[in-house]
């Protein structure tokens, strides 16, 4: 469904992506994993057309979308829930959701109403405060609204960038449950996450990025069992040890 081949994206003189290749098949949840600065968000922004790759190609449903404008890519059916949620702060919850339906130019009022009801069924809370303004919402509510807005586009694929970031553990579980549910109703998902374990638990396959390159790609089950993955991305234990060591080093350095 989505095929990304060898894309190289630059921020001015800095090369953020050094030939990223990945693919997402219809109906899948694919996890895009990696540390901070590995190029996960850059990959998403390049797929959506906000950033333009210098090399490589992006194909969606057998259409070459490399270099297309973001507005047009949204229209042909790639929805994105970017990092930081990006809810319009001065608009109401309902307005934010309705704007999500922008790509559906030919949809009737009834169809959009149906989709709105579907979003409200997934996130009952949103219906309760549909008149509230974006800036009045809490982090968890913002994330629900952001995903809901993404769903309103009726797109075949949803790119989710760090949906669990900054949420309380209970909410993180809730978000992953919803992602799984959305996927079951037919939406393909490319999920960017730092929380590798949680992501792989719901994903079919995963790609691991490191400094702008795909270092590993496999089925989710294999990645969960992979020793290298365990050491670097899955073992919370090692993380803590490393962090402690780093702090000790820093103190020694200072």
């Amino acid at each position, binding site marked *: 469904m989505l095929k990304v081949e060898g894309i190289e994206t630059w921020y001015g003189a800095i090369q953020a992506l050094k030939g990223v290749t990945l693919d997402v098949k219809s109906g899948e949840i694919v996890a895009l994993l990696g540390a901070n600065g590995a190029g996960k968000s850059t990959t998403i922004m390049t797929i959506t057309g906000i950033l333009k790759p210098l090399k490589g190609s992006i194909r969606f449903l057998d259409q070459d979308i490399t270099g297309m404008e973001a*507005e047009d890519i949204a229209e042909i059916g790639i929805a994105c829930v970017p990092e930081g949620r990006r809810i319009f702060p001065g608009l109401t919850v309902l307005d934010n959701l309705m704007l999500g339906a922008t790509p559906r130019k030919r949809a009737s009022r009834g169809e959009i109403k149906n989709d709105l009801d579907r979003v409200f069924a997934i996130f009952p809370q949103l219906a309760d405060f549909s008149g509230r303004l974006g800036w009045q919402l809490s982090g968890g509510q913002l994330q629900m609204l952001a995903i809901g807005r993404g769903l309103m586009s009726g797109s075949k694929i949803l790119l989710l960038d760090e949906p669990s970031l900054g949420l309380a553990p209970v909410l993180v579980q809730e978000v992953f449950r919803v992602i799984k549910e959305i996927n079951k109703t037919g939406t393909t998902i490319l999920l960017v996450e730092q929380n590798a374990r949680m992501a792989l638990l719901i994903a079919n396959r995963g790609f691991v990025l490191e400094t702008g390159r795909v270092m590993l790609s496999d089925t989710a089950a294999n990645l969960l069992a992979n020793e290298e993955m365990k050491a670097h991305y899955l073992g919370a234990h090692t993380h803590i040890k490393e962090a402690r060591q780093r702090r000790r080093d820093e103190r020694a350095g200072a």
Partner: protein
Amino acid sequence: MDWSTNLQMVAAGLAMGSIYALVALGFVLIFNAVNVVNFAQGEFAMVPAFVAVWLMNSLNTPFALTCVITVVFMGIFGIVFQRIAYYPLRHRSFLPVVISTIGVGIFLKNGAQLIFGAEPLSMPRPTSPTALNIFGVFVDPQYIVIILCTLILLGFQYFFFEKTILGKKMLATAQDKQMARLLGIPVAQMIAITFAYSSILGAAAGILVGPIFFVTKDMGAMIGLKAFCSTIVGGFGSIPGAILGGIFLGVIEVFASYYISTAYRDAFAFIILILVLLLRPQGFFGEKIAEKA
């Protein structure tokens, strides 16, 4: 110092304030959409005044038709202005665009002089020149027209941004352009429409104020500056702030020139501006805004 004189001045102040408010709104809408202060905003009121005078005096176009033509002309003018003064510089910082709007403003002023001459022109009045006597208060009917037209425009604008999806898309574009693009909102179009609408607000201001003042190439500069003061007094970036700031300045100006000094009429707006900047720099309705992340 009787009450009828004071009420007369309130009417005059509300009328002038409405003009400032219309131009101030243009400032704010463009600023919100593209984060740039359009220093040619005053010229957006000067150009339509000349167009209207020319239509009425040279072609004997009836007033209503003149209004329609001028508004349509200014809508297109706003889009062309945007294409020339803003669009090529859209990826640049604040300053190049500001300088570009100042440049186009100078061009427009001198263009007006070249085409229409340096002599001040008078615009035919759509209203009777004799003051209306409303319960003993003598009011120029043009003031009432100005106030009513402004109210109608504000009502339309409220409806447009609150109730229409196009209005929401424009607000979304103003709040987060990148996210708007991700949702498939044609951002460049929304910005062009914003300029067109700001320019139409200028058309309203120019046609409404024309019959009171002479139409000159410099009329835009003074209106533009005072409208800019209004936006700051009201709280920069705030729509209600621009409206109330404009009306506040208009009323203060009329009262101060009567009670304090007519000669310094034009100075009062700036005195208020300085006081507001000293005492409440965020303006009446402004929030203390941190730089956008």
